[in-house]
């Protein structure tokens, strides 16, 4: 007897249909799975056998061969359990096999027959709709996530018996309505918690309005991380398409899942992270931190401590907005549209510019330290701002602003930017002459000049200026990132 059931596997970030074929014929009892499965797939035999028996079905004492087609695609993980069990039941005549043609099943089985969640339900649901499947059976707590996809009937079930009922249409348990998974993290972080730090707040606002990458430079413990964590709260909320994109990535990575992610992600990987961990990779390529931060903020604390290869690996993804990982004959693409926020100490001891004379670093130390950060990655960071300890009186004062106020300004600025998109940035005459004299001083490279103009354009949008005024440009000059060449000969 033969039957087939459709399921899906995740290849990078894309769902790929897999047909589970089961053939049962007389012979010595055996259960073989072919089709390039990994260890989890081989172990699936034991789970399926126990689950079938513990759910009150019979496990046929015959020669069973299962094939996962296409046989050329490598398959990993326990997500084939449910499909294997269903195909086996159909092949052994314990349910009418006619019903398993326009249904897809996705989930891992426990030994007592319960259906367990597997990462990537959203991507699988999208794949199911794309392939014209009428009904998708998923574990109960992934029902909400799968139901985000419209035009697909989702059955959210608890165990193998329910899978059979849902496949035959006897009982189709409706999934819970899609949840909005606003931050899985702490309660909303707000700029209203910030005292002092006027200049960094300004820089955050400009960075958010123009999606500029930002470098925070300041002594330890002054609030660099605290400020960076609040950046998502002033970014525009994710649109529906963006939210689905973010949810899909996180669901596949096994982080979050079960509902829609509305908040922009904030990722702060530790500095020991490898290049593969940053942009994605591994034997079975998985999304890296840069992809998990897609449409959100990637925060690199202690930038100087990150391994060089890790930072170098970030360059192309930051520029292009995606990372392509090649493994054997396959090339997988992971989106990496992030805002990069990096934090660093100003010097090896960390106290430069603190006002007292605690910093004992020599100029050569400073240069060496800067050189470690320097290079093409810094080239992609438009804004640099110093963060220093707020004074006692600043700490006692009420906060300058709230996230809601800033976000409103950011949204307006982005709106204006959208209308200006086609026009080249134009400078008022006074701004033009200021730009000239700044360039003539020799501190700016041509690329640096472009960056200053870009930032000035964002500031003009924030201020509602049609053209870049002198003040906008001056502010941009102040917020620009200093190159290593500019650092020496500057007194602390």
């Amino acid at each position: 007897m033969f039957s087939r059931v459709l399921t899906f596997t995740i290849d990078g970030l894309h769902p790929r249909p897999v047909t589970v074929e089961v053939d049962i014929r007389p012979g010595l009892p055996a259960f073989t799975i072919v089709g390039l499965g990994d260890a989890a797939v081989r172990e699936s035999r034991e789970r399926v056998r126990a689950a079938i028996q513990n759910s009150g079905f019979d496990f046929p004492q015959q020669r069973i061969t299962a094939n996962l087609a296409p046989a050329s695609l490598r398959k990993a993980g326990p997500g084939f359990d449910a499909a294997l069990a269903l195909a086996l039941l159909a092949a052994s005549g314990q349910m009418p096999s006619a019903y398993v043609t326009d249904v897809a099943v996705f989930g891992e089985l426990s030994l007592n027959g319960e259906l367990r969640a597997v990462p990537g339900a959203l991507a699988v649901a999208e794949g199911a709709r794309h392939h014209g499947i009428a009904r998708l059976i998923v574990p109960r707590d992934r029902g909400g996530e799968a139901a985000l996809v419209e035009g697909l009937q989702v059955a959210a079930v608890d165990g193998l018996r329910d899978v059979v009922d849902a496949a035959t249409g006897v009982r189709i348990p409706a999934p819970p309505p899609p949840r909005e998974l606003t931050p899985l993290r702490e309660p909303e972080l707000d700029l209203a918690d910030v005292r002092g730090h006027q200049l960094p707040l300004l820089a955050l606002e400009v960075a958010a309005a123009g999606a500029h990458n930002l470098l925070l430079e300041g002594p330890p413990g002054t609030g660099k991380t605290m400020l960076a964590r609040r950046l998502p709260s002033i970014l525009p909320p994710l649109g529906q398409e963006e939210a689905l994109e973010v949810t899909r990535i996180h669901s596949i990575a096994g982080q979050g899942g079960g509902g829609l992610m509305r908040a922009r992600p904030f990722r702060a990987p530790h500095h020991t992270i490898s290049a593969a961990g940053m942009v994605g990779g591994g034997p079975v390529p998985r999304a890296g931190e840069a992809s998990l931060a897609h449409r959100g903020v990637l925060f690199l604390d202690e930038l100087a401590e990150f391994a060089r290869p890790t930072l170098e690996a970030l360059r192309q993804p930051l520029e292009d907005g995606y990372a392509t990982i090649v493994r054997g004959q396959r090339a997988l693409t992971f989106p990496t549209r992030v805002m990069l926020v990096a934090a660093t100490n100003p010097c090896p001891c960390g106290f430069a510019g603190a006002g007292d004379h605690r910093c004992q670093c020599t100029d050569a130390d400073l240069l060496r330290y800067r050189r470690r950060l320097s290079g093409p990655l810094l080239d992609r960071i438009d804004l640099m701002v110093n963060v220093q300890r707020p004074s006692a009186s600043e700490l006692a004062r009420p906060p300058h602003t709230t996230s809601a106020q800033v976000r409103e300004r950011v949204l307006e600025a982005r709106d204006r930017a959208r209308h200006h998109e086609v026009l080249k940035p134009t400078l008022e005459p006074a701004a033009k002459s200021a730009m000239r004299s700044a360039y003539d001083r020799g501190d700016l490279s041509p690329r640096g000049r472009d960056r200053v103009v870009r930032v000035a354009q964002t500031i003009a949008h924030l201020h509602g200026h049609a053209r870049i005024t002198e003040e906008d440009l001056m502010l941009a000059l102040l917020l620009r990132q200093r190159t290593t060449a500019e650092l020496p000969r500057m007194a602390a």
Partner: protein
Amino acid sequence: MTACFPCLRRRWLIERLAGHIERQRTMVENLLGLEDLELISLLGGRDHEELVRAYARFSHRDAEAQREAAAEVQVALVCRCAQEYPAQLLALEAMAPAVLSVCGPAPLVNRPVPDDAVAIVGTRGATSYGCGAAARIAGDLAAAGVTVISGMAPGIDSAAHEGALAQGGATVAVLAGPPQTAYPVRKTRLYREIREHGQVISELGPAMATWRWALRARNRVIAGLAAITVVIEAPIRSGALITAWHADRCRRWIGVLPGPVGHPQSGGTNLLLAKFVAARDHVEPGRVRAVRNAQDILDLIHGEGIVEVPDRVRAALTPGESELLRRIAAGDDNVTRIEVSSLSTLAALELKGAVARGPGGGLTVLGG
């Protein structure tokens, strides 16, 4: 401009004895003050006989060969018997270098270093405070038309040269090795600029290597050439303090920039100010002065208010900018302490070169 036979023979002898001098534990300054034959008998050792013979054999033809070798690499020679020899160097008495090898552009190379030149010296491991001060003071001196002398070492020396060059001023680098090559090598770019706009001076010939003793010995040339030696930043054991000690022996001024107490890189300068100890030896208290800026230095050389540092920056400021500059000078010296509405004014101050921003956002008022 040329060098006479006895002086060239003297230089030949010192170059010939370079290895012997390196092995000596006595102070190199004292050795260099000895007569030719005294030097041979003191340092000759096993080679004594041979050295005496070679010394006697040194001929006019050998001297001419030296002159030709120098001319080949565009090095001008001037000996202490010549009129173009900087007269102030003779204050070193017997220690005065016999021959100076000079590199520089055509009109400058034959002009002796003016006797109101200022030496700016300090540690290689300088902090931004020291480098900033050195560049600023050198720039202001250059703007006032004063020649700045230093040794082209990393740190303070380079900052001083760069500061003077940035103002289009004349600057003199005194090297320990041959004058036609850059030492240290990574200062090659600076070397080229100095050679184009100033002078590079050495007491050794073009064929010599850079010996350790020569690095110490050239300090006396720096001190001897300058009307005042300004020590910017120096730890307790620093070559810059040797320069200061020589300035004392030449009866010149010693200017000292005070540094933060307890900071190792300012340990030597603060000690000099408090106890008049330079290079583990006492100097005459009357010759040591604390200096804050170029004006203090010019007042020491020429007398109060005779030569003024031109105000390059302040003239160009708007009232708002001057106001902010006063605030920064009064203590709001970090960019994070400036409120958002004044930030574009601050950027204008930076642009006009009135303020520099350092690591950590520290602000320094320049030219004041």
